[in-house]
C-alpha cells in the first residue's frame, strides 16, 4: 500500500455492522419477551433463535454470523474502506467504539479566510459567496496572493497617497494590466465589485421600455407557445433596435441574474392556484406540458387536487411557461461575427500565445474570459473549521476552537488515547540461522525470501491510565492465494497503565526499567520464546510474531514449471505480506456518573470491565518472487 513497510492499519468496525433495517428494528422492539440489548451480535443470535419462520431474516442472520466468524481479509475490496492508519481514527466515548471518517458527520463551526485569518459569519457566506470580503485576492495569472500597494508611493514621491493597485509579487501582475486602479486601500472587494458588477438593478430600470414591460407579463395575453412565437416575430424590429444600443453584451453574472429574475416571474405566473399552499412547491417545475400530463392522472391521484384539475373541467388552459427571448431577459444568441473577432484577436501579433488565458486560469474565471486582459483578481476562497460528531449517538468527537487564529481543539477524542498504538519492526536476525552474530542486518522488507521464517516485533503502547489485558488472535495462514504462516508467540499479555513517569520513578519500580535495560543489553543474544513477551516497559509491551512468507502463485518451487499448473501469475500487490490480527482488549475503567446511578451490577469499587475488539492489519513487507 501507500505507506512504507512496515505499517499497521486498524480496521474500523463500522464495516462489519450491518446496515440497520427499519423492519428488523421494529420487530426487535416489538417482541415483548426480549430484553433490551445493545450489542448487535447478541441481538442477532437472539433473533436467529426466535424467528425461525422468517426465511429472509434467517438468511441474513446466517450471513451476519458468517461474517462474524470470518477472519478479516485485508485483500478483500471491501476492507479498503475500513482500514485506516491508527492516527486517523477517532473514538466515541458514548458508543465505546472506534470511529473512522466514514462513521462520523461533520459540521462547519466557522468560515475564515486563510489569508487574513478573519472569520466570516455564515450569513455573509450565504449572501456573498465563500470568498473573502476584505482585501485578500489571488493573482489571476499565477494564483499567488496579491498585495495592495500605492502607486505614487512606490514611485518615490511619498507626499501624496496615490491610487492603489493590487500587485503580485511573483509574476509581477498588477491590476494596471487590466486597467483597474482603486481610490481607497480598503474594501477592495466592494470597489472591484462596483467596477465590474453588471447585474445592477439599473439594467432593468434603465429600459422601462415597452419591450421589457410587455415581456414581463406575457402570460396575460398569450396562452400557447405558438402565439408567443408569433408575437415575437412582431416584436422583432423593436428588438433589433434594442440590440443596437446594447453594444457590449451582458456579462455572465448579469445574464444569470436576468435569467433568474425572468424565470422567477415565469414561475410565479404559471403556478395558477395561489391559494394552494403547495403550489409554490409543485408549480416550480410545471411547464404546461407537465401540468397537462399530470392532469391525466389527476382523477386517481392525490396530486389532482393540487392542480385544480380534480374537478372534471379545468376553468381555463393553464398558462404556458416560456423561455427567455431577449437579451434583457438574459438570452444570448451566439454571434458568428463575435467568433471571427475572437479568432482575429488570437491571430494578432499583440496577443499571441501569451495573451490567451490558459485552461487553468479560465476555470477560475467567468466562462466568457478568453484572453489574459480579461482576467480579474479573485478573492481568496474561505476555509472552514469543522466539528465532528459520532453518527449514531451525535456525541461530539472533535470540536476546534472557533477562532481562526487558534489551532487548538476544545474536544478531540482521538482513538490513540483509547487503543494501544501498534508499531511493527523486524527482529534483527532470522531464527533459521540461530548461531549468527548479532551484526546480521534486519531483513529487507521489500524482498522477503519465501518459506524462510522471519521474526517481527509488535509493540503495543498504551495511552490509557488503566492497565489493559490484550489478547491477540491471528489466522495461522493468511487469507488469499499467498498463504503465509503466522504465529503470535505470546498471544495474551498485559500492558501497563500510562501512569506518570515520575510516579513510577518515585515509587521505585526499578524492576521493569532494569528489565528493559537488560533486555536491550542482551538484545543480541535474546531468543524469542513461545509464551513469553519479548520486552515490556512502563506502558508498552512487545511480542514476537513468527512469519513464514508463502510463495507467490506461479513461483512454487515444489511444482516444477509453476506457471503451467493452472495458476495465474501474481496480481499487482499480491506479494505484499499483510497479516490480519484480531485484538481484544479488556480493562477496568471507572464508571461514569450516569451509569453509576443506573447500573445495579456495578462493582462496589466503582470499576467496570470494559472491552473492545477490532481487527488490525500488519503490513510486514513484500515477498520476493523467487527463492
Amino acid at each position: 500500500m501507500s505507506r512504507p513497510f512496515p505499517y499497521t492499519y486498524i480496521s474500523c468496525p463500522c464495516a462489519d455492522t450491518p446496515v440497520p433495517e427499519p423492519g428488523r428494528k421494529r420487530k426487535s422492539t416489538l417482541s415483548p419477551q426480549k430484553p433490551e440489548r445493545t450489542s448487535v451480535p447478541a441481538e442477532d443470535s437472539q433473533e436467529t433463535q426466535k424467528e425461525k419462520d422468517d426465511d429472509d431474516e434467517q438468511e441474513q442472520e446466517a450471513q451476519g454470523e458468517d461474517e462474524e466468524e470470518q477472519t478479516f481479509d485485508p485483500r478483500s475490496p471491501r476492507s479498503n474502506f475500513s482500514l485506516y492508519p491508527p492516527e486517523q481514527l477517532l473514538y466515541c466515548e458514548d458508543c465505546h467504539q472506534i470511529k473512522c471518517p466514514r462513521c462520523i458527520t461533520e459540521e462547519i463551526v466557522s468560515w475564515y479566510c486563510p489569508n487574513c485569518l478573519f472569520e466570516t459569519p455564515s450569513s455573509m457566506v450565504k449572501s456573498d459567496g465563500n470568498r473573502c470580503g476584505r482585501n485578500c485576492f489571488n493573482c489571476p495569472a499565477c494564483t499567488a496572493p496579491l498585495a495592495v500597494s500605492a502607486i505614487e508611493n512606490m514611485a518615490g514621491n511619498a507626499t501624496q497617497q496615490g491610487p492603489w493597485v493590487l500587485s503580485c509579487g511573483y509574476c509581477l501582475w498588477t491590476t494596471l494590466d487590466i486597467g483597474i486602479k482603486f481610490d481607497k486601500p480598503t474594501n477592495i472587494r466592494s470597489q472591484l465589485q462596483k467596477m465590474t458588477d453588471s447585474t445592477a438593478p439599473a439594467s432593468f430600470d434603465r429600459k422601462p421600455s415597452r419591450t421589457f414591460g410587455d415581456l414581463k407579463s406575457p402570460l396575460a395575453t398569450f396562452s400557447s407557445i405558438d402565439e408567443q412565437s408569433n408575437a415575437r416575430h412582431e416584436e422583432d424590429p423593436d428588438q433589433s433596435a434594442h440590440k443596437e444600443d446594447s453594444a457590449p453584451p451582458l456579462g455572465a453574472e448579469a445574464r444569470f441574474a436576468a435569467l433568474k429574475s425572468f424565470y422567477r416571474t415565469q414561475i410565479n405566473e404559471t403556478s395558477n392556484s395561489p391559494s394552494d399552499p403547495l403550489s409554490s412547491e409543485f408549480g416550480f417545475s410545471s411547464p404546461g406540458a407537465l401540468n397537462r400530463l399530470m392532469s391525466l392522472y389527476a382523477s386517481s391521484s392525490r396530486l389532482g387536487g393540487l392542480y385544480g384539475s380534480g374537478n372534471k373541467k379545468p376553468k381555463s388552459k393553464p398558462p404556458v411557461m416560456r423561455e427567455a427571448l431577449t437579451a434583457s431577459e438574459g438570452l444570448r444568441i451566439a454571434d458568428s461575427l463575435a467568433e471571427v473577432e475572437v479568432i482575429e484577436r488570437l491571430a494578432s501579433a499583440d496577443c499571441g500565445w501569451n495573451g490567451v488565458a490558459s485552461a487553468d486560469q479560465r476555470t477560475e474565471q467567468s466562462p466568457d474570459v478568453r484572453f489574459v486582459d480579461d482576467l480579474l483578481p479573485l478573492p481568496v476562497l474561505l476555509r472552514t473549521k469543522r466539528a465532528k460528531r459520532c453518527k449514531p449517538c451525535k456525541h461530539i468527537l472533535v470540536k476546534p476552537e472557533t477562532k481562526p487564529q487558534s489551532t487548538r481543539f476544545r474536544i478531540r477524542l482521538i482513538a490513540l488515547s483509547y487503543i494501544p498504538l501498534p508499531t511493527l519492526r523486524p527482529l534483527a536476525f532470522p531464527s533459521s540461522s540461530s548461531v549468527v552474530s548479532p551484526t546480521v542486518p534486519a531483513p529487507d522488507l521489500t524482498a522477503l525470501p519465501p518459506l524462510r521464517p522471519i521474526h517481527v516485533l509488535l509493540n503495543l503502547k498504551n495511552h490509557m491510565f488503566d492497565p489493559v489485558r490484550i489478547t491477540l488472535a491471528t489466522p495461522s495462514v493468511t487469507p488469499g492465494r499467498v498463504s503465509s504462516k503466522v504465529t503470535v508467540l505470546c498471544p495474551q499479555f498485559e500492558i501497563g497503565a500510562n501512569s506518570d513517569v515520575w510516579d513510577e520513578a518515585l515509587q521505585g519500580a526499578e524492576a521493569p526499567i532494569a528489565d528493559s535495560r537488560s533486555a536491550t543489553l542482551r538484545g543480541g543474544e535474546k531468543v524469542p520464546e513461545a509464551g513469553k513477551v519479548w520486552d515490556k516497559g512502563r506502558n508498552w509491551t512487545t511480542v514476537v510474531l513468527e512469519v513464514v512468507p508463502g510463495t507467490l502463485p506461479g513461483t512454487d518451487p515444489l511444482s516444477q514449471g509453476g506457471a503451467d499448473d493452472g495458476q495465474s501469475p501474481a496480481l499487482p500487490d499480491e506479494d505484499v505480506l499483510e497479516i490480519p490480527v484480531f485484538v481484544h482488549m479488556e480493562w477496568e475503567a471507572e464508571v461514569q456518573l450516569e451509569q453509576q446511578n443506573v447500573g445495579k451490577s456495578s462493582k462496589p469499587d466503582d470499576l467496570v470491565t470494559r472491552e473492545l475488539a477490532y481487527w488490525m492489519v500488519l503490513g510486514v513487507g513484500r515477498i520476493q518472487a523467487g527463492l
Partner: protein
Amino acid sequence: MATLKPPSATHRSSSSAPPGPPRAPVKADPSATIADTAVFQGTHPITIGPGTVIHPRARLYSYEGPITIGDGCIISEKAVIGAAPESASKERSASSSRTASPSPSPSTPTDGTTTTTQTIHTPTPEEGLPIRISYFVTIGPLSSILPGSHIHSAAAIDSLATIHRGAEIGSHAKICAGCVVPQNGRVAEWTVVWGSGVGQRRTRGRGARPPGSAVRVAAYVAQVPVPESAPEGKLVEDARLMVLVREREALGRMIAGAKKR
C-alpha cells in the same frame, strides 16, 4: 561610499597551492561593492560596472569567455555566473547543461592544458562565449547563468533559476524562482517566465491599458462613464527599480558603518 575589496588580496585561491585555479583578471569600478568571499576564476577578463553589488560566495567563472557586468546590478549569494572548468569541459563535448559544482576540484592536468591553450590563444571576446549582464539586473541566490547568455537591462532573475547557454533575456523581463531558460532561448522584453521548469510566459503591462471588458460592460449597465484608464504599467516597474536603488544604497551604508566600527 562603497568599498572595493580587491579580490586578489583576500581571495582564497591566491593563498592556495600554485596548481590552484587561475584567478581571473578583474576590472572593477571603484564604486562597486564586492564581498570578500566572492570567487573570481578563469582566464578571461571580468568587468564590473559602477554601483554593482556582488554578494558573498557568488562565483564568477570566466573560463569560456569574458564576463561583463554593467552598472547597478545585484548578484546575490551563491549565484554562479559562467561554468566551472570541469563541467565546462564536459559540457563542451556533450553540451549537457549542468551548472558548476560547488567547488572546483584541484585542477587536473587536462584542465591545465585547456587553460594554457586558451591563454596562448588570447581569444577576443567574440571568440569565447561572453556573458553580458546589462544595467540594473538582479540575479537571485543560487541561480546560475551559463556562458554565452546575454541579460539585458533591468531584468530580474530569481533564486534557483537557470539561464542556459546562449540564452537572451530581454530588458525588464523576470525569470521566476526555479524557472529554466533553455539553450539559445529568447525571452522577449517585459516578459515574465513563471511556473516550474520552462514554465509559462506572461507579457507585462507596459503602457496604460483601457479598463477591461468587464469594467466597460458594468459601466455601461450602470450608466456611468467608463473610468479613465489607469496609469501606465511602467510606473510599477519604475517603483521596483527605485527599490533596488535603495537596497544598494542601504547596503553601501551598512558596509561603510561596519568598516568604521
